């Protein structure tokens, strides 16, 4: 009796370990995550407009159909990235995701406080390698550190009414994302 209870206890403990291990391994093994879905559609280090979701097709689930969306799939191995996104009339936001879809930074047009959102994206190593005086003089320069060398920058512009979607798309079409080679 005690013996079979021990076996059951061992099974439950082991089951817990299996559960935790599979949950933790999921982001590493997922083949249908957002980055994998976007990879074939987006050349690296350039801004690409995504088609709006429809009932028939959507690149990702739970996309907000009221927004025009563009993506810059970045790779920081060649140097830091400069992102310039003009602000649309209604609401524009820029969200940074790691390779594993973790939103590590997001900013909207009001927080950016200008006519365009301008950011420098770099790895912590590239940030540390910046000349010190440059870091000081560029106090108004917004520097974002990416936890991963690859990831996604997602630009979203709201169309408050469906008729304004072309305008939101147009605003995003002017956005650029370019590699800044290290000096």
């Amino acid at each position, binding site marked *: 009796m005690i*013996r079979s209870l021990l*076996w*059951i206890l*061992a*099974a*439950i*403990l*082991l*089951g*817990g*370990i*299996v*559960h935790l*291990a*599979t*949950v*933790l391994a*999921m*982001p590493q093994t*997922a083949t*249908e*995550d*957002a980055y*994998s879905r976007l990879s074939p559609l987006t050349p690296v280090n350039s801004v690409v407009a995504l088609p709006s*979701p*429809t*009932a*028939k097709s*959507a690149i*990702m*689930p*739970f*996309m*907000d*159909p*009221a927004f025009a969306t563009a993506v810059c799939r970045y790779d920081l191995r060649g140097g830091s990235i400069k992102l310039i996104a003009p602000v649309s009339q*209604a*609401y524009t*936001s820029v*969200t*940074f*995701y790691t390779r*594993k*879809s*973790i*939103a*590590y*930074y*997001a*900013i*909207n047009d*009001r927080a950016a406080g200008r006519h365009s959102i301008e950011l420098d994206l770099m790895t912590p190593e590239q940030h540390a390698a910046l000349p010190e005086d440059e870091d000081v003089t560029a106090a108004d320069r917004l520097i974002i550190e990416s*936890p991963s060398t690859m990831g*996604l920058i*997602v630009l979203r512009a*709201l*169309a*408050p*009414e*469906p008729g304004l979607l072309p305008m939101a798309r147009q605003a995003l079409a002017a956005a650029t994302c370019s590699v800044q080679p290290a000096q």
Partner: protein
Amino acid sequence: MRLLFGSCFTLLIAAALGLGATWLTLTRGVAFGALNIGAWTAWPKSGSVDIDPYARASIARSGELPTGMGDGIAFYAHTDDAGEDLDGRCTFVIDGMTPPARYWTVTLYDPQGRLVANALDRHDFTSEEIVRDLDGRFAITAAPLARPGNWLPTGGIERFVLVWRLYDTPIGVATRTTKEGPMPTIVQKGCS
């Protein structure tokens, strides 16, 4: 012999338990730090680096990109205020207060996060386009057949999900009480 049988049995049960629990938590969308307001649930931490392992696994599996914390917050509703499932063959009225936000959108999806086909091509409302009465109040009717006013077509599907997204809002990790963030009520008004 007994040892062999016991360890095989243990391993089998362990695998079933562990994988079963993982499948359940990932398909049900279990995550820590949920913010519940009425029928609505948001996971503010899922839009930041503080995202928990369950939410990480769940978004890796579904392929969605969570709304970033500096962008806004997304509230999901799978049931009405009485706890009944959102059935696309029934009529639901959504009205009341919304928390402070520069803009909001409300979108109707199927449980997998796809938009629902309908003749009007209407899947969502934004805070700007919604029709309000003289007091600025609004009511949305989610129903399979056309309704006057703000009609959100359900397409008659068995289950649907409503997602209320607030953009540029103070609602987030620090929000605790429903007074800070009043959300609209969802009430069923009969089924066809």
